[in-house]
């Protein structure tokens, strides 16, 4: 025996692993053990093979790779000793799988063991074969298994039956060989053989129509009798559970009967009596009895119609549903899902109870119930059900709101009886849980609003009121902003008043106030702000009296660090200032959005040719989320060159603007921007050698580059808008999905959190001259996003001017920098600059924040540059 390979005993290894305090310690212990095992394997150490494998199984269970032990399993299997064989087979089943080449080597050992004189060894081989055999092995060893189905020992027969299941699944052609032996097994008395045989027959029926036909004709009667015997059997201690003889066998038999009875009236007839007996006689005060009743109801619902039995089953369902035990209620909901296809009326009777379950405190039950309610909705009950669900939406858990909102929206869209109802309900959902509403849903809402010309006034007024009440729900704000921009005039002159409305008095200035509310709101993101800018432009034409004020508001964004806002602000400003003559035509109402096209787009089935033949209808939905910012660049270029005077009407002009003709120019502007903001500048920012002068000269660009994830989006959008309209056809409208184009970042569907945890402030950076501290907060309902307030303090006796803070983050983060409070930092800590950052972590919970920063400022007109990396963000951000 080799003294060096003695290693530790299995027990000692487990103790050592248990004693580990950290994952790192555990890894160290496992690494050491694995090394010892490897060494022992290399020395071909017979004595420790058994122990090594036992250790490997433990290590495997902990989730470490153990492939190097696979050959050891094969060696142990080949050993003549039973204990070694035993553990070898266990290792084979745990450490190997059917995809491994090594497995081919074991076929021979298996064949020998299947023919072994010792029945336990035969059992081992069968078990291994049943768990891991591949198609090739199945073909090679099927005759052995077939023979073993008739083996004298019942324990071998039962394993052979299950082995056969694996074989026919791998090679369905072999099924016919097993039909007769399987049918013979059904006559057995041994429960183990019976339960496995029933399972084999059920699976045979799945792969072979011939088998199904055979069992239906030949075995239904005897199976019914078997079930009857078991139901009526006297107490048998071996199989008794809660006074029922072998509930597992009951259930398997019922399952098999279901397969046989489905679609066959004769077979169904044969089993009616026994099913009635099981349904009425089984005790329902214990879990085992309920399990049988559950299976029995499923069978009754699946087999051919028998009115009496169905009533019985529905009654059991009702009993289950009103049970206090949550497990029972859960399965009742599950059963109702199946029953709804058979007897929708009976299920509808339980609607009130099911609705109660949607409000249950147990997430599993809620989920089931919600799915069921969804199936229950039809034209006649959609109104009360939606009302209930929306009412519940107000009080439901944050983490359930996502599911619930999606289902409600889907119900509203599917069954809405009138447009006004649709709009009303959607507004309710938006005000209640707008942050959970998916982009395509509110896009669809806008399409519907646009199509309901008689409801424009009503809708815009309703939205105006909702906006006054709260601006917390982002999608509500967006839809409201869009509508106020489009139909602002109807808001003011109360046009299209419906009888049900209370009149409101809104002035043009009030409407502008509303948009201002949205644009200034902390929660508003880029899309909302961009939409607000468009709305303002439109209002400037609708209410000329407010034009001046709107211009001031638009100008405020001229210095925005977000390229998209900045561009819009400058362009719109120049429209208001210099192009009065075309403005009203330019900002006319959107033509009615084509519902059919929109639905087609959502389904992703719009043919690509549409983009050329019918530019307007395809382009307009773009306008919904992204008003034509990019084309306006060209508009300005064109008109400053005194190019074509807009002779056509506004609508046409808009089409022209969006049309393909202008694409070369667009593409140019797009490609100019994308690489500059996207790559160069980022490199610039990250590279260390760059001379400070250069970086300060290109400051604005660098700053916009810190929104890398956002600004290139807009330019990319510009690109795709012009160059590949067809590509857009499958992309959902809106800005955020565009991020996919960049790095596959999935727009975060916010995972809610009740109370944002409090994070300690940190000093992110400190040098002899400068200190930066960070304060953190999380907006409720969005754990991925962190708001960071950076406070800069000057530690030197000199005043810093032209102070600029820049930051870069890895791809999984998204950074948004708000403008700093000032660009002059007073000396000696006598004042500070604050700047807000918003970081969205797409790997929230997996990776923590990191940031690379660069601070540039001037002391007496001399450039100073400081750089650093911040790694000490608190965890969980």
């Amino acid at each position, binding site marked *: 025996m080799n003294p060096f390979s003695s290693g530790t005993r299995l027990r000692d290894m487990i103790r050592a692993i248990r004693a580990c305090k950290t994952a790192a310690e555990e890894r160290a212990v496992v690494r050491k053990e694995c090394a010892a095992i490897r060494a022992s394997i290399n020395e071909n150490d017979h004595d420790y093979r058994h122990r090594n494998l036992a250790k490997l199984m433990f290590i495997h269970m902990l*989730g470490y790779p153990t492939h190097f032990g696979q050959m050891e399993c094969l060696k142990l299997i080949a050993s003549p000793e039973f204990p070694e064989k*035993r553990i070898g087979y266990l290792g084979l089943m745990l450490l190997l799988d059917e995809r491994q080449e090594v497995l081919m080597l074991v076929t021979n050992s298996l064949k020998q063991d299947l023919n072994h004189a010792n029945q336990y060894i035969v059992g081992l081989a069968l078990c291994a074969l049943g768990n891991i055999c591949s198609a090739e092995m199945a073909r090679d060893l099927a005759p052995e298994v077939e023979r073993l189905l008739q083996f004298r020992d019942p324990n071998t027969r039962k394993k052979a039956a299950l082995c056969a*299941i694996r074989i026919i699944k791998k090679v369905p052609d072999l099924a016919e060989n097993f039909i007769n032996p399987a049918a013979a097994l059904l006559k057995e008395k041994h429960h183990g053989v019976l339960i*496995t045989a029933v399972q084999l027959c059920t699976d045979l029926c799945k792969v072979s129509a011939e088998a199904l036909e055979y069992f239906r004709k030949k075995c239904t009667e005897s199976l019914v009798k078997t079930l009857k015997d078991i139901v009526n059997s006297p107490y048998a201690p071996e199989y008794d559970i809660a006074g029922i003889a072998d509930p597992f066998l009951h259930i398997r038999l019922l399952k098999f009967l279901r397969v046989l009875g489905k679609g066959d009236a004769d077979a169904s007839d044969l089993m009616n009596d026994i099913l009635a007996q099981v349904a009425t006689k089984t005790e329902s005060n214990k879990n085992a009895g309920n399990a049988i009743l559950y*299976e029995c109801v499923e069978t009754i619902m699946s087999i051919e119609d028998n009115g009496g039995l169905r009533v019985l089953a529905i009654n059991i369902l009702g009993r289950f549903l009103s049970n206090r035990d949550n497990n029972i209620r859960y*399965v009742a909901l599950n059963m109702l899902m199946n029953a709804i296809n058979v007897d929708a009326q009976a299920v509808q009777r339980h609607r009130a109870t099911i609705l109660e379950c949607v409000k249950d405190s147990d997430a599993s039950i809620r989920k089931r119930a919600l799915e069921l309610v969804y199936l229950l909705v039809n034209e006649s009950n959609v109104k009360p059900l939606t009302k209930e669900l929306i009412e519940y939406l107000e009080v439901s858990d944050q983490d359930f709101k996502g599911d619930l909102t999606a289902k409600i929206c889907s119900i509203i869209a599917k069954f809405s009886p009138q447009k006004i109802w649709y709009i009303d309900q959607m507004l309710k959902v938006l005000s209640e849980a707008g942050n959970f509403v998916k982009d395509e849903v509110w896009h669809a809402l806008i399409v519907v609003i646009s199509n309901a010309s008689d409801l424009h006034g009503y809708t815009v007024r309703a939205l105006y009121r909702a906006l006054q009440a709260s601006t917390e729900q982002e999608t509500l704000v967006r839809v409201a902003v869009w509508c106020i921009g489009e139909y602002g005039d109807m808001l003011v002159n109360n046009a299209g008043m419906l009888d049900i409305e209370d009149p409101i008095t809104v002035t043009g200035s009030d409407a502008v106030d509303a948009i201002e509310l949205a644009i200034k709101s902390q929660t508003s993101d880029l899309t909302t702000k961009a939409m607000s800018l468009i709305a303002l432009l439109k209002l400037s034409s609708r209410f000329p009296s407010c034009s001046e004020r709107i211009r001031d508001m638009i100008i405020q964004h001229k210095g925005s660090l977000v390229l998209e806002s900045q561009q819009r602000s400058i362009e719109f400003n120049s429209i208001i200032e210099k192009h009065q003559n075309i403005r009203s035509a330019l900002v006319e109402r959107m033509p009615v959005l084509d519902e059919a096209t929109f639905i087609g787009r959502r389904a992703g089935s719009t043919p690509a040719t549409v983009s050329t033949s019918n530019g307007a209808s395809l382009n307009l939905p773009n306008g919904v989320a992204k008003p034509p910012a990019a084309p306006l660049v060209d508009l300005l270029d064109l008109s400053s060159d005194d190019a074509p005077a807009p002779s056509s009407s506004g609508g046409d002009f808009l089409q022209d603007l969006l049309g393909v003709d202008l694409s070369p120019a667009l593409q140019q502007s797009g490609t100019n921007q994308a690489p500059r903001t996207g790559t160069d500048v980022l490199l610039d920012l990250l590279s260390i050698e760059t001379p400070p002068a250069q970086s300060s000269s290109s400051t604005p660009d660098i700053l916009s580059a810190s929104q890398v994830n956002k600004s290139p989006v807009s330019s990319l959008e510009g690109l795709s808008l012009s160059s590949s309209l067809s590509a857009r056809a499958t992309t959902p409208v809106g800005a955020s999905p565009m991020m996919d184009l960049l790095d596959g970042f999935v727009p975060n569907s916010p995972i809610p959190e009740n109370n944002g945890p409090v994070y300690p402030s940190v000093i992110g950076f400190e040098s002899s001259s400068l200190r930066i501290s960070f304060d953190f907060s999380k907006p409720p309902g969005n754990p991925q996003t962190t708001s960071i307030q950076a406070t800069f303090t000057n530690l030197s006796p000199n005043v810093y001017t032209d102070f600029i803070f820049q930051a870069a983050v890895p791809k999984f983060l998204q950074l948004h920098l708000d403008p700093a409070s000032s660009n002059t930092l007073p000396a000696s800590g006598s004042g500070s600059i604050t700047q807000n950052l918003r970081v969205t972590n797409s790997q929230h919970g997996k990776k923590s924040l990191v940031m690379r920063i660069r601070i540039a400022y001037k002391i007496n007109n001399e450039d100073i540059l400081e750089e650093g990396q911040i790694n000490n963000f608190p965890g969980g951000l």
Partner: protein
Amino acid sequence: MGIRFILMVNKQGQTRLAQYYEYLTIEERRALEGEIVRKCLARSEQQCSFVEHRNYKIVYRRYASLFFLVGVDNDENELAILEFIHLLVETMDRHFGNVCELDIMFHLEKAHFMLEEMVMNGCIVETSKPNILAPIQLMDKAS
């Protein structure tokens, strides 16, 4: 095939036994176990014993410090699986005498042997405790 995997996990979420009846890579297993354990351990006693996760339905039951989790197909009878878990625990109890986490840790292979006699390829083989334990006792006697 009904049962896709069987897990035994302690209160701290450490896996104590894992048996899969379908192929998953080590990484997939670790991820799956982590997700399921987090989901199930967070639930209260009053909540039902079923959790839907990915395309599995998890039926779980807690015995003292040990959770027994069984992943099944969607059309499996959940109540029967619950009963099966109980049968498994009773069988182990009979062998180890009031089974605890340590019994399973230090006799992992025995626990597996028992499971092997009860489930094969995701199907139930045997439900009688004496029949399940017979081969194991035979081996104990021999060694």
